[in-house]
């Protein structure tokens, strides 16, 4: 019956809306409200301070965030787009291997990546020092730090967005389009400018927006590399650490406004009619490179590229084998053993963070799985008013910078609330799984949406026509068919939860501190080896999960982004 159908939709909607209101909307509103409070009264003081002329540090941080993000977009595009072209348009030995290696930066949790870059290219980094010794220089020839450090880390991790979106677009371009243009007498350059580039524009714009948003929100890189340099996400952290929650709230609101407007702009841009191919599934054919010299240099470049890409991973591995206290004033470490790993089993204090991370990530991911599948089903398969609003609400945690999510939770749940059954969550174990859960809602929903949208409605209708009730058809028809999508999102959520740093650093307690926090602590104590060993554990966990998902569910890591 029609009414029954409506009631059922409502039944599915209630938990979804409840969760979103309680843990996404309400905390954001609390932050908004808090930002208008100063010394007990309602006023605009926080914003006056932010934009005021007395201290320009906040305005400068905002400006820094923006220009670092713009430069990150530029550099990521300069690496990612040409790589996508080379790997998808030309055939040369090892191409397939290099093109998979190109997404390696995903396997590096942000904090570990930054740490690796510090060890590699920092003041006492291995590479500058190696060059200094080789060439017999007095000082290191270069070092990264501050803006250059942040930018290099951003380019390294974020070019993947460009690489993947442009690659998939290139693969979907019907080769006959370009051939038609050649046939009509256009030269190489004209074809590129008039045919290929316009077709790639949506992908490039999409990736640009994504990279911009990600670098606006970036926390780990500035946190470790900025030195005196301030960006907005870092300002929030310092305000919080200094106990000025109301200022932190105002800063969060401003950062959110920037991010959310980008989210809305991106939605608008993607929903605009773009010229997507009418013909599907025609694999782009790659031109074989005939010139042996060119072929050779392609391979050499590819090998060099892979080495550069893998250097951070290798560095972490090597450092994790260096026992603490054996590498202090020397340029290079000299003692290697597996002591750092053995401590995991002998010292409970060393093992605790690993256990915590696993438990926290597991709990959060379980929540993401259940909530994500339900939400995605409602969004894709059910009709109701306000679907667009719900969709935006689901995407909100993705647009909100991690630091802001953390601040929202602090401001909302440092007092009893009905959504926490009258408990104070801040300072307890549960605040961290909740934070991970919120941050990764969009991952599961998005990847499940993608599979559900491909699921032909007539399959569900056929099942109902054969007499299956909703639950039976969901279990036997819908679920098995969208499993790859669900798993892709869920595993990615797990991976992200294991490596999470920015909200963890705002919300952790001593008893639930995850690996990332312990890495930070070990770094502070200059226990590079132990920190690297933790980093290796994160990398292996992530690698393992990606391997399993590829092996058993046939999921490509790039699918889930």
């Amino acid at each position, binding site marked *: 019956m029609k009414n029954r159908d409506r009631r059922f939709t409502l039944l599915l909607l209630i938990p979804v809306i409840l969760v979103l209101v309680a843990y996404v909307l309400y905390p954001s509103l609390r932050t908004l409200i808090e930002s208008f409070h100063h010394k007990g009264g309602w006023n605009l003081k926080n914003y006056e301070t932010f934009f005021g002329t007395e201290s320009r540090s906040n305005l400068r941080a905002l400006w820094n965030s923006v220009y670092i993000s713009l430069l990150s977009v530029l550099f990521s595009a300069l690496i990612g787009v040409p790589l996508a072209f080379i790997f998808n348009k030309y055939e040369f030995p090892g191409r397939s291997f290099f093109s998979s290696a190109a997404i390696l930066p995903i396997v590096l949790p942000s904090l570990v990546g930054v740490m690796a870059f510090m060890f590699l290219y920092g003041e006492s980094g291995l590479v500058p020092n190696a060059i200094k010794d080789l060439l017999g220089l007095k000082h290191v020839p270069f070092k990264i730090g501050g803006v250059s450090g942040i930018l290099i880390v951003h380019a390294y991790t974020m070019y993947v967005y460009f690489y993947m979106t442009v690659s998939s677009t290139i693969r979907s371009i019907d080769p006959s389009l370009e051939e038609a243009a050649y046939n009509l007498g256009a030269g190489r350059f004209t074809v590129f400018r008039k045919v290929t580039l316009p077709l790639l524009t949506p992908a490039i714009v999409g990736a640009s927006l994504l990279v911009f948003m990600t670098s606006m929100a970036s926390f780990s890189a500035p946190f470790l590399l900025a030195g005196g340099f301030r960006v907005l996400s870092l300002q929030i952290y310092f305000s919080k650490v200094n106990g000025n929650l109301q200022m932190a709230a105002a800063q969060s609101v401003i950062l959110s406004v920037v991010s959310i407007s980008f989210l809305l702009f991106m939605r608008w841009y993607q929903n605009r009619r773009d010229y997507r191919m009418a013909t599907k599934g025609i694999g782009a054919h790659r031109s074989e490179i005939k010139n042996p010299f060119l072929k050779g240099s392609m391979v050499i470049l590819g090998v060099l590229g892979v080495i550069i890409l893998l250097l951070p991973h290798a560095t972490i591995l090597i450092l994790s084998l260096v026992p603490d206290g054996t590498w202090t004033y020397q340029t290079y470490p000299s003692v290697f053993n597996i002591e750092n790993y053995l401590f995991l089993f002998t010292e409970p204090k060393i093992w605790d963070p690993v256990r915590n991370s696993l438990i926290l990530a597991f709990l959060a991911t379980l929540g993401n799985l259940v909530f994500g599948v339900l939400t995605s089903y409602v969004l894709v398969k059910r009709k109701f008013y306000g679907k667009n609003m719900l969709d935006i609400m689901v995407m909100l945690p993705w647009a909100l910078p991690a630091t802001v999510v953390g601040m929202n939770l602090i401001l909302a749940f440092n007092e009893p609330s009905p959504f926490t059954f009258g408990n104070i969550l801040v300072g307890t174990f549960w605040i961290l799984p909740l934070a991970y859960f919120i941050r990764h809602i969009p991952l599961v929903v998005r990847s499940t949406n993608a599979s559900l949208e491909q699921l032909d409605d*007539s399959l569900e*209708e*056929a*099942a*109902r*026509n*054969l*007499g299956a*009730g909703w639950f*039976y058809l969901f279990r036997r028809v819908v679920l098995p068919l969208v499993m790859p999508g669900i798993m892709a999102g869920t595993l990615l959520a797990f991976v992200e939860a294991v490596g999470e740093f920015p909200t963890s650093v705002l919300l952790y307690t001593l008893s639930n501190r995850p690996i990332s926090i312990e890495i930070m602590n070990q770094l502070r104590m200059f226990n590079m080896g132990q920190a690297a060993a933790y980093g290796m554990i994160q990398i292996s966990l992530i690698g393992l999960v990606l391997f399993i998902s590829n092996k058993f569910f046939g999921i490509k890591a790039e699918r889930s982004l």
Partner: protein
Amino acid sequence: MSSVLLENITKSFKDYQAVKELNLEVKKGEFFTFLGPSGCGKTTTLRMIAGFYYPTTGRVLFGDRDMTRVVPEKRNTGMVFQNYALFPHMTVFENVAFGLKVRRLGSAEIKKKVEQSLKKVRLEAFIGRQVSQLSGGQQQRVALARSLVIEPEILLLDEPLSNLDARLRDEMRTEILRLQRDYGITTIYVTHDQVEALSMSDRIAVFNFGECQQVGTPKEIYNEPANDFVAAFIGETNLIPVIWDGKGGETLQFSWEENKNKKVVAETLFSSYERDHHLSVSIRPEAVEVFDEEPLNLQNVYEGNVELAQFTGASVNLFISLGEKTVQALILNNQTRREPQPGDKVWVRFPESHVRVIPRVMNQPARSMST
């Protein structure tokens, strides 16, 4: 098995009426076809019978049970989808067994029934296959078996042959008819292929713009179309707008709207019509007689010129200009006679018994019409 009754059904999507005041009865065991051009509401009507849409107004009855608001899974109809909608993650066996599992039959019984029904569609050798490894025709037969195995009261087929090539289509047509006769099941078949409709159906409902234009046996629909839309949609026909002059003895007298001097005489009474209806004369090409010399003492004879002669094998298709109008005539490929050539002067005759006078509903302001 049961009859299907659609009572005064209207279905609106937002402010667009996809089906308007539809009244239909499909009898027990009948092979009934919905025929009409694209977008005329055939699928919408079928989906209301299956329960995927609920009518905005009106009732759906199976036998004397009101099914209007019953959920699809409780209707016991077997639907074959245009794209077959086979579950891609299941084997042939699992697909066919699906409806039986839902009905909680024992596994031995399920196995027996699935095997039987696969035998009926001649697919018993493919029972363990993944459905993606089947050809289009085989997939379609799995879909049929899946619908039939639950012994539905009504079988619903939405353009099941439209994805197949011509040869397979012929084969499947016979197959579907055979199964329908075997099971004696009430069947509603949707198509916009008139040959399919005419050759398979017990009765046909012709749709246009969400309205049912005529219901009847294939013969009735072809020989006695209710209006010019039906006449033109089913087969080829010559339509000549006319004005009624009056009765002349046993016959009815008309003159051409475009040339009052040309008269038409008809024997048959036209179907019910209203005074303000504009009328047309319809005559099928195969009924038009063609003469090389002017025939004497006959009515409905017009002089004309052959414009085009298309040789199609068994017959020759002539396009003959009568001045105001070009008519089509079909003459058999009779080798003893020289067939008319373009430019020839000929006389055509519309035999009175084959002239049908029908109300005009196409190309004119919308008005109420009865059929």
